[in-house]
């Protein structure tokens, strides 16, 4: 018998034996069942919305969980599509993102003739200029026609100029200065400074004026001038209005713009998607396979990483998920594998050229964080062997295309031994594929992944018996993640009274659940994302490969408690830009009723008592706090911090 029905039956028996009448028995039954529904919603979603409890009641808990496990059977919220529609970068391939949103905005990437000059030289001359001794280089330069020589001296790498005669060096300096002036002129034409576009008063208005004043000013500019002004203003002056903010960001910091759309979609999905479990799992796996957004250009690669490597596999096979992350340029870049090369002592090395070598970072984190876990039974020798296996797994033209490429030229072809498995020599890319196979099938992986999932969904310290059964499912189904989740959700440990309300919400979970509880509408998520970062969880911003914690102790601290209290009051007071709370909805009732509405159940006795004691406080001096204030207090309460 499934645990849910067992629990209901047990509750019914208890109720029947103590009830004073049928009505009371039915009420008790409903209460217990509702508590189970709320528990399931708390754990499988980013927080229950007011209508969610009724929906689960109607179709039944088991059916609802099953639907969530098969999101294609869930009708998606049309509001979500509308919110995501303007975020065009979400659909672009990596090469398109790199092309349309380069690190240096195209307009500012001024290419002058000197950048092509070297490529135009006959190869023999170019190579003499790069590698020969000073007098040879001097002669070669003298032989060039004056115009070409000037271009070469301007654009040449430093080693070309090393040790040349004084007159030549002076010629080079003069040529470089001349080209630099040319570049500055071109820059001023493309991006005129603010002082050339607006008067001092107008600049002051844009920096410190009211929204109405700023809007009036921008609207008054002629269409040719307006975009130049937007690009010249400091980003801060424009952040208030989403449309201005996006325009300036896209023009001045294109890669930051791409990242901002990724953050926006994450929050919109968490807030609006009906396929909540899928979103919770995408968040879980993005954390598990953490990639930091601030290391470098791979910021724009994150959009594809989440969309192409993570999302498609959250209900699939762990092996496929692991392989997708191992091959994705975002991961190859973040953990340095793209530069890891076999130290080829047999290859000739030109003087002054240093060949890169092996980088262990990915090899270690692959085992420690992604699969086996730190106690999973690997050694330092295994780390090196895995790193050697993955040499050659690199990125083709990271700045223009960023596609996965296997480069046999840097692959370590020798035999390797990984966790006791011998990988014969000379098999190229297969080495890495074999390691992925070995690791996905390793019993430590089954246990490690099962434990992490149990931490997220059940308890910080999950019952070993449950983890064992999940690991058994993992092994039996060859890493079928949906099956492992089914084992988890059907388990008595998941449904147990003892685990209800025992996990502390992360900043993301807290903020999103607060908005969902209030049925708030978000039209812009910039301010919300900033607040979540201030609470300690900058999205996609965990520097360490460990990702954000699945356990509660990461989130209990004074800064955290205070931050959440202030977030709640700002939210209900309508002070979070882009988020609207329907205050009329709260107009009902007294404090306990508001509490019940937001918590989907009765508040704890201590919370109710504190509310009763304080209910006389109002900022207008009238008796009784405003519903908005009461809502803020509930959302700040210890009750709401737990799920």
């Amino acid at each position, binding site marked *: 018998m499934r645990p849910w029905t067992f629990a209901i039956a047990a509750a019914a028996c208890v109720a029947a034996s103590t009830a004073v009448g049928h009505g009371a028995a039915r009420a008790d039954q409903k209460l217990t069942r509702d508590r189970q529904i709320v528990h399931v919603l708390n754990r499988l979603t980013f927080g229950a919305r007011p209508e969610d409890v009724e929906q689960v009641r109607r179709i039944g808990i088991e059916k609802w969980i099953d639907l969530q496990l098969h999101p294609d059977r869930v009708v998606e919220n049309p509001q979500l599509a509308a919110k995501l529609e303007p975020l065009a970068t979400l659909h672009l391939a990596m090469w398109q993102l790199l092309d349309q949103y380069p690190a240096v905005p195209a307009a500012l990437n001024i290419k002058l003739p000197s950048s092509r000059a070297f490529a135009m030289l006959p190869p023999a001359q170019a190579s003499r200029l790069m590698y020969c001794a000073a007098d040879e280089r001097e002669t070669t330069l003298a032989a060039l026609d004056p115009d070409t020589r000037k271009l070469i001296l301007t654009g040449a790498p430093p080693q070309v100029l090393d040790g040349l005669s004084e007159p030549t060096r002076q010629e080079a300096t003069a040529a470089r200065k001349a080209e630099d002036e040319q570049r500055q002129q071109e820059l001023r034409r493309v991006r005129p400074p603010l002082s050339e576009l607006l008067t001092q008063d107008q600049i002051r208005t844009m920096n410190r004026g009211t929204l109405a004043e700023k809007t009036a000013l921008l609207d008054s500019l002629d269409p040719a001038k307006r975009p130049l002004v937007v690009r010249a203003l400091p980003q801060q002056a424009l952040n208030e209005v989403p449309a201005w903010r996006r325009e300036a960001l896209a023009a001045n910091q294109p890669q930051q713009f791409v990242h901002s759309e990724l953050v926006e979609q994450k929050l919109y999905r968490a807030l609006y998607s009906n396929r909540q479990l899928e979103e919770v799992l995408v968040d879980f796996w993005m954390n598990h396979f953490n990639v930091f957004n601030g290391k470098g250009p791979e910021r724009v690669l994150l959009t594809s990483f989440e969309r192409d490597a993570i999302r498609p596999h959250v209900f699939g096979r762990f092996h496929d998920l692991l392989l997708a992350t191992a091959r994705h340029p975002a991961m190859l870049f973040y953990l*340095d594998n793209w*530069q*890891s*090369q076999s*130290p080829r002592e047999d290859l000739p090395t030109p003087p002054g050229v*240093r060949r*890169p*070598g*092996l*980088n*262990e*970072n990915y090899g*270690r984190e692959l085992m*420690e964080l992604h699969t086996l876990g*730190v106690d999973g039974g690997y050694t*330092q020798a295994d780390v090196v062997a895995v790193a050697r296996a993955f040499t050659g797994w690199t990125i083709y033209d990271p700045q223009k295309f960023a596609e996965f490429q296997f480069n046999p030229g840097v692959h370590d072809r020798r035999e390797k031994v990984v966790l006791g498995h011998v990988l014969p020599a000379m098999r190229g890319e297969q080495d890495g594929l074999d390691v992925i196979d070995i690791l996905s099938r390793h019993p430590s992986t089954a246990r490690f992944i099962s434990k992490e999932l149990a931490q997220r969904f059940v308890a910080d310290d999950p019952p070993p018996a449950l983890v064992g059964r999940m690991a058994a499912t993992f092994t039996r189904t060859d890493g079928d993640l949906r099956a492992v989740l089914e084992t988890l959700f059907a388990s008595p440990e998941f449904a147990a009274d003892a685990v209800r309300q025992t996990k*502390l919400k992360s900043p993301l979970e807290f903020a999103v659940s607060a908005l969902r509880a209030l049925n708030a509408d978000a039209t812009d998520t910039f301010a919300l994302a900033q607040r979540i970062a*201030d*609470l*300690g969880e900058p999205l996609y911003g965990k*520097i*360490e490969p*460990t990702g954000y914690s699945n356990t*509660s*102790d*990461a*989130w*209990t*601290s*004074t*800064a*955290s*408690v*205070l*931050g959440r*209290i*202030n977030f709640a*009051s*700002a939210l209900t*007071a309508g002070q979070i830009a882009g988020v609207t709370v329907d205050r009329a909805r709260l107009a009902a009732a007294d404090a306990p009723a508001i509490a019940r509405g937001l918590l989907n159940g009765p508040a*704890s006795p*201590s*919370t109710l*008592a*504190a*509310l009763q*004691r*304080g209910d006389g*406080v109002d*900022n207008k001096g009238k008796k009784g*706090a405003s519903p908005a*204030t009461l809502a*803020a*207090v509930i959302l*700040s*309460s*210890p*009750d709401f*911090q*737990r799920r």
Partner: protein
Amino acid sequence: MATRRYFLRASALAMAGVGIAPWWLVRAAAQGGGRRKILVAIFQRGAADGLNIVVPFSEKRYYEFRPTIAVPEPGKPNGAIDLDGRFGFHPSLQPLKTLWDEGRLAVVEAVGSPDPTRSHFDAQDFMESGTPGRLAEDGWMNRALPAAADPSPLRAIAIGTQLPRTLRGSRSAVAVNGLEQFHVRNQQTAGILESMYATTADARLMTSGRETFEAVKMIEAITKAPYAPANGAQYAGEFGRSLQQIARLIKADVGVEAAFADINGWDHHSNEAPQMTQLLQQFGASLAAFARDMGDRMEDIVLVTMSEFGRTAREDGNSGTDHGHGNVMTVLGGAVRGGHVYGRWPGLEPEQLYEGRDLAVTTDFRDVLGELVAGHLGQPIDRVFPNYKPVAPLGLLRA
């Protein structure tokens, strides 16, 4: 200093007389005699490359092992700053040279954990709990705080959004992420919330809640007065901001005994040199600013820096370094016997390296921290570092 104590007492009593002194001010004044000793712990997260921070420029192997990222010898362009003929600071640490020359800054070489882990996660946890090889529930710095009848809510502070493992434990400690913002926006609700958290069944939230509201009251009182660093001290970057908050809290005389801040970004697996230069600029400038800002109060303060492990002696294939073992710690303060490199230098010959790849550990980090806890805070260390006997005193502090 006598002037300050006198002023404090006079003002507190005067205010108490008028009935408006905040309770913590009265308490601080009453504690009068005996200046409080303060320990500040700084954690460099990510395994800082000690060999490039305090450069062993007299070792030929150093240059052999690091063809592209070694810091040049003193005297060469971008060369190390000579400290004692064998070791030198990375040039970005120029602001710390004066402190070295004045004998207020000491370096401990080849220091670290006996545990062999090269996992950031584990090693940080072990170092912060002070129990290498075994994870403790609490942190060494929390255990170093003596029991107190009526401790100040701000006696142990960490700058950041989370309380670090170092300060977790039975003594109350507070994480502060910005003094100016540390108050409840809607004052009307503060009372209800304080009551809610004080009575909740959830023990973790009750403790965090109580500590929050006590700290809020104290910090609100502190931030009423504007703050400017003294003696022209100029802090740099995020790390500088953290140290400045610590300085401000110490100067507010609210009973700070232990403070913690961390600085991220040291995990240089590739392209180490420019990243190190930038990071050390912020690091060095801010430490020097802190000393300058605190002025003669540095007599009562000891600041110690640490990182979970060092990095490989040889550079890796990408002008970076991989995870290593032995590292460097620095100790700063008026009571420090500075201007000296402590610890037994094991050498960089291949047979002297740990597992043939890393700087070996010849001094346990608990020896350094233990000496500071015992010598500066005056606390016994058997509780702080259980099952550990320090080998021999390093002599980091003046008698």
